[in-house]
């Protein structure tokens, strides 16, 4: 049986002949071999794991008052030394991981919930609603996260939830726009018309066709957003707009260690390295997900 595989939407390397039943499984095994996916997932897992552990246990409690000598070097008692208040750097770094994970997960969840809902709404209603939503979204994107965070902090005070709200809301604008673009592309597809022709309603179409088809793109964006959220939280905390103790924060550690960087370099270098590590891991993970969902980047097929 000859075929019409010149159609552009065939995933690269789609077999012309009917293939064996095991193919989807083999394909997923191949996806997992994407190096950036594996490396990114490993890097992020380490942070998540440390964050989980620190949620229940850290070598020393995270208080505003230290337990050791000030600016101590690494020792058997304090593996990574102590900061200028005599607090254990390792414990703070671990608790900082918890903070980073919480900020990333919560702000991404908020961004996804608001952004996807707005994007789908904009894509599937009348032109007027679409234009209105797009204008609001553009305005939001133009509005700096930092400024929004300052506004929220002024109103609600500096706290973990203020930071999450600020990052989540500005992320929602980005996610809304990406969802809108992709959803309206999917809504024009023949299979959506075919679904309508067989009696599927709006919600059924969104659930069965639109969401699954925009999911790969969105997943990549949400990963990148998680990285951006961690960076934004670090910046806000560095500026003193972030969560207050007893919450530890890498950004605040950077700020506090800044003045003593020559005496205790580890307390300044390590939070920076961890921020870079986590964001890099999330970006690699995002790339990995894109590689497995975008056939044009799937070089081996």
């Amino acid at each position: 049986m000859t075929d019409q595989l010149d159609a552009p939407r065939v995933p690269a390397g789609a077999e012309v002949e009917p293939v064996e039943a095991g193919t989807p499984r083999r394909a997923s095994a191949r996806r997992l071999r994407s190096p950036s996916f594996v490396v990114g997932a490993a890097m992020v897992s380490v942070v998540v794991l440390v964050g989980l552990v620190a949620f229940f246990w850290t070598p020393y409690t995270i208080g505003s008052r230290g337990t050791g000598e000030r600016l101590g070097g690494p020792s058997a008692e304090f593996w990574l030394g102590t900061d200028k208040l005599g607090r254990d750097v390792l414990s703070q770094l671990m608790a900082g991981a918890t903070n980073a994970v919480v900020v990333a997960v919560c702000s991404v969840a908020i961004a996804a919930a608001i952004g996807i809902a707005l994007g789908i709404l904009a894509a599937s209603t009348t032109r007027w609603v679409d234009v209105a939503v797009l204008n609001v979204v553009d305005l939001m994107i133009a509005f700096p996260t930092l400024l929004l965070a300052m506004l929220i902090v002024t109103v609600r005070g500096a706290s973990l939830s203020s930071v999450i709200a600020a990052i989540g809301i500005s992320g929602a604008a980005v996610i809304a726009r990406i969802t809108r673009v992709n959803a309206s592309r999917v809504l024009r597809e023949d299979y959506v018309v075919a679904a309508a022709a067989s009696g599927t309603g709006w919600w059924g179409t969104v659930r069965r066709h639109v969401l699954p088809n925009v999911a790969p793109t969105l997943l990549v964006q949400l990963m990148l957003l998680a990285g951006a959220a961690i960076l934004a939280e670090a910046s806000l905390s560095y500026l003193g707009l972030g969560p207050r103790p007893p919450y530890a924060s890498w950004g605040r550690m950077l700020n506090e260690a800044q003045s003593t960087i020559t005496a205790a370099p580890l307390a300044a270098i390590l939070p920076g390295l961890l921020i870079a590590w986590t964001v890099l891991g999330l970006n690699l993970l995002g790339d990995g997900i894109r590689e497995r969902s975008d056939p044009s980047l799937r070089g081996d097929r």
Partner: protein
Amino acid sequence: MTGLEVRDLTVRTSGGRTLLDSVSWEVPFGGRLGIIGESGSGKSLTAAAVLGLLPEGMTATGQVLLDGRDLLTLGERAMRRVRGAQVAMVFQEPLTALDPLMTVGRQVAGPLRLHRGVSRARARELTADLFRLVRLDDAERILGSYPWQLSGGQRQRVSLAMALACEPRVLLADEPTTALDVTVQAEMLDLLDDVVERTGTTLVFVSHDLPVVARVARDLVVMRSGQVVEASTVAQALEAPAHPYTRQLLAAARAVSRLPQEDER
């Protein structure tokens, strides 16, 4: 009349352009109507208007009577219960008409679960039966396949199975063989012919290709620039085309000599 009747169907854009101009035709239940015309003649738009799926900004006036009930007056909810259940459609491009991320088994089961409310397991059984009806060998394996894992002919059979899932009274086929190559096209036409015969489904077959229409349809409507220029039977149109445009189509088809009465079949 018991059947599908389109009466004075007129479609206009919001800008006031008339795309369909008082189109009227009818097909009794169990009948087979071919609608033929060049691209832009409004034949596909007619099919879309019957299902109430006109692109945004277009409005239809006139009547679309299914068993005497005017579909144009139905609300969206009532219309959703007609689509797929009473009037179903097969599309031109079998690849893009199937969601690339969903197994074809789930896609065909979609209308069944929607209109009949059958369980997942039962829908799967019924889908396998449908695959056998459209002569998809190895139905069990195809259930779990994705569209891109199937050949063009297999995909179009899947689309046909999906359209027939809820045993609709009318099947609208919009150029269902145009995207297939000639050998597969012939198989598909035979299959359509056979399936429609066996299930007693009313067929409205839209195409630009006269020999293809002649193969499956009995009645014929010739459309040009949004109007019906000739309505007769296929046999009559082949013998004594009344309208100059029909004669032109016939001459064009004869030129490539694929008309059924001219080969040895």
